[in-house]
């Protein structure tokens, strides 16, 4: 009698275990919060205040990010020009091609640590992360759609209404819901786990060359590429051109002539994997970038004060050390994080 009972209990227990492992998890195990504040990072922009990141909001945002339905002929998605392996930049593309292979005028920037930015694009024209997606969606050379039509397509799709319901508690699909989901996904792209970060946390050590490169970085680059974001988020003219008719940069937004030729200081995180560089992608290697600063700076009326005394003196050996340091800003955890991947 006793033996029978024990046997029955064991059978019951094993059945429970088997059934449990066959049933897929409804909610995924959360190993790391989707949005978090890395150690030492400054305050965020506050633009997530009305839009806290949740798993379902993030998932909806990711689905939208990789869905070409946002484009006129369903060929272009955000992911077409923002590739995870390139830190969400467009690898090896000076300029990107959108609908009908039409080309834009500016290099697709990498996407990470966006919650610490208050404005977006090379000229800062977008003043809120929720408004940012509207520009590529409606740009005739990118996705060439209208917001109203995108909403219409999402509403009649077989899968979006349920995803919006899960994310926001209502299957009502609005511009605000769509852009908030995208904002949740984009804000979760956080890169703060490079070798540099580990060195700062005391869990890794630079090689001698990397350390020399870091010291050089602090002496020559840090005033604009401020730690820990590796950008001070300001708009500066770094001496690429004498005239700015082709692209006035920040002046296009502020309408101040003193802002002509100024572009947003990009973050140097993941810089080794997100070439080419500059607002129009004209420099395709870190070597060329450093050469620009040591022999190619063009003085103009709006040149940044930090470069107004001319080129930087960097020896060949120092240049190599600097590049080795810049390589330590690559964050493989971020580049390979499956949570951000298309599939």
């Amino acid at each position: 009698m006793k033996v029978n009972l024990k046997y029955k209990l064991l059978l019951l227990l094993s059945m429970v275990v088997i059934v449990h492992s066959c049933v897929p998890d409804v909610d995924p195990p959360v190993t790391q919060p989707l949005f978090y504040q890395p150690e030492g990072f400054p305050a965020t922009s506050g633009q997530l205040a009305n839009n806290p990141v949740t798993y379902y909001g993030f998932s909806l945002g990711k689905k939208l990010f990789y869905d070409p339905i946002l484009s006129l002929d369903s060929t272009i998605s955000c992911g077409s020009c923002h590739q995870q392996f390139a830190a969400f930049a467009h690898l090896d593309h000076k300029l990107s091609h959108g609908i009908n292979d039409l080309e834009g005028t500016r290099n697709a920037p990498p996407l990470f640590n966006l919650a610490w930015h208050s404005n977006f694009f090379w000229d800062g024209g977008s003043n809120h992360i929720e408004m940012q997606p509207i520009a590529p969606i409606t740009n005739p050379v990118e996705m060439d759609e209208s917001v109203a039509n995108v909403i219409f397509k999402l509403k009649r799709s077989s899968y979006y209404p349920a995803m919006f319901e899960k994310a926001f508690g209502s299957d009502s699909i609005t511009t605000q819901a769509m852009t908030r989901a995208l904002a949740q996904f984009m804000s979760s792209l956080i890169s703060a786990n490079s070798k540099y970060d580990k060195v700062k946390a005391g869990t890794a050590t630079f090689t001698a060359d990397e350390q020399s490169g870091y010291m050089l970085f602090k002496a020559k680059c840090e005033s604009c590429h401020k730690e820990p974001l590796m950008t001070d988020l300001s708009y500066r003219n770094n001496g690429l051109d004498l005239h700015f008719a082709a692209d006035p940069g920040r002046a296009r937004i502020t309408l101040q002539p003193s802002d002509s030729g100024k572009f947003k200081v990009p973050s140097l995180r993941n810089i080794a994997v997100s070439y080419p560089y500059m607002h129009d992608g004209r420099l395709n290697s870190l070597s060329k970038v450093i050469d620009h600063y040591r022999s190619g700076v063009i003085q103009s009326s709006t040149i940044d004060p930090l470069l107004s005394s001319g080129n930087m003196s960097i020896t060949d050996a120092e240049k190599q050390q600097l590049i080795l340091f810049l390589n330590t800003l690559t964050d493989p955890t971020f580049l390979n994080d499956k949570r951000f991947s298309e599939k």
Partner: protein
Amino acid sequence: MKNKLYSLFMIAFVAIAVSSCNDDETTPSTNSGPATYNSGDVGLNFENIAGSVFLDPTGATNYVNASGETFSVTNFRYYISNVKLIKEDGSKYEVPNSYFLINANDTNSLLAELTDIPGGKYTGVEYMIGVDSARNVSGAQTGALDPANGMFWSWSTGYIFMKLEGQSSASSNNSFVYHIGGYSGVNRGQRTVSLDFTPSVLIVDGGKREAEIHITTDVLEIFKNPSNISIATQSTIMSVGAASSNIATNYADMFSFDHIHNDPL
């Protein structure tokens, strides 16, 4: 036992007496005079005109602007927001969250419904043409402010406060496009409108009186007062600058109070 019963009776009596004292302040007097008015809805009815005739927004009718240029209109839309109703005593009631997109080509949009206005007598209305700065920097909005309405610059975040588009032989490519915006800075496009109903008075008494204010919007004013705008000189304005600011100063006085519907229901 008897004492207990007596105490209970006293408690009950006091409770009833106290509760019956609360009936004094049921009809709050809202406004001037001894009469009591219920809160209700007020409609702002916009009639788009071109001088002395109703505006045809389909492009089929020609008009002449102050610069002597012939033009027709195919698209005329504008935001009015931050509506305030001015009471008889001069104080202002701010209608919360009031944002309306008036579209000459959409008759449903021509009546802006202001809800739950406190009952009373009103002698005027004030509103902003455009969208206030705060709403331009706080992310994706809904309703009239939804970017899907197409009154929005995504390359430089900001609402377009007024769109006027049409055909004109004065333009080198036969069309003109004026998109006026700018939520901050010296060339900002917001303007305030203040309309007085005097000698009329609008009595808001929900359920007892209809309450509709008729306002005319004269498209010809966009081309004059104080600046003469010439299509030949500039047929396209799609960014913020001195030209758009001039048009904004012109459109500041394109509204006129016409009449009120305030009959008892």
